[in-house]
């Protein structure tokens, strides 16, 4: 990743202008051409490092969400993870080091929809889900500082 790409990521994981030509706006602020910006985004895409450009919705305004865990027997991990991945309500799905080993986030238009999804998961997998909705958010910062101001332990 070159310096321009780092600067682009450090500056524009937040506060991308909502204007007719946002990529041109990035280019102007970073002192390069719009084509340079498209090239960097394409390079990130090829490395599978770009999810998308645009909004991350505030789940409490946009709908409902919850964090769910399943205790999956080791021999069934691949099968159950695939069943969970197949649900449109699931975005992140991780294997973690614990008896509760499969962790994923469910989102939907409302809480009743999530309740139905949890019942479906229990019926499909035969496993009882741990349903852990957020009660209080003390910090939500999903951007990652990658350049010189990074606080990421390295």
């Amino acid at each position: 990743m070159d310096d321009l790409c780092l600067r682009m990521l450090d500056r524009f994981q937040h506060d991308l202008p909502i204007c007719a030509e946002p990529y041109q706006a990035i280019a102007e602020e970073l002192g390069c051409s719009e084509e340079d910006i498209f090239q960097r985004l394409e390079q990130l895409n090829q490395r599978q490092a770009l999810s998308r450009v645009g909004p991350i919705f505030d789940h409490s305004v946009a709908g409902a969400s919850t964090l769910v865990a399943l205790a999956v027997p080791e021999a069934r991990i691949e099968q159950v993870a695939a069943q969970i991945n197949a649900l449109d309500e699931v975005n992140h799905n991780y294997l973690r080091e614990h008896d509760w080993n499969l962790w994923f986030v469910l989102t939907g238009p409302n809480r009743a929809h999530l309740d139905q999804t949890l019942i479906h998961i229990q019926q499909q997998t035969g496993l009882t889900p741990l349903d852990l909705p957020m009660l209080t958010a003390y910090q939500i910062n999903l951007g990652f500082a990658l350049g010189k101001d990074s606080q990421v332990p390295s």
Partner: protein
Amino acid sequence: MSDGLTLEQQQQLRRLLEHGLPLASRPYQVLAEQINSTEQAVLQHVQDLNAQGLFRRFGIVVKHRALGINANVMLVMDIEDERVHQVGAALGEAPGVNLCYRRPRRPGWPYNLFCMVHGRDRQAVEAHVAELLEQHNLLQRPHHLLFSTRAFKQRGARYSQVGAT
């Protein structure tokens, strides 16, 4: 008129936005063509949604694992109810803590405070978490570090009614 989109067009637009903006010079023009509207109406609607607080952030969304940030731990703690807001607020402001949430305890799950810490190296993340716990006098509280060992799925959330287009 502050908004030139029908309700159906608003729903279509929201579904499209969940997948991200097109990588094109005029992305709102591209979206407008997909929902039979105009660039001006789409742009105005997205600005209105932003003003209403629907977006937590708006920008480039990266997949951190592909950028080498692949030591990812969920630190879970059991903190006394009367102290959890104070501890949550303090940890939420601590360096390296990306997310900090209170969640309910459940039978078989005693932890009520969750922090995510990401880094490039497992030992560095463990050391960072140990330091955080010590600084906040939490080493005596029940806690557990759940490192992630595989990502099966990582993409944006879908809030729209599933199956709707």
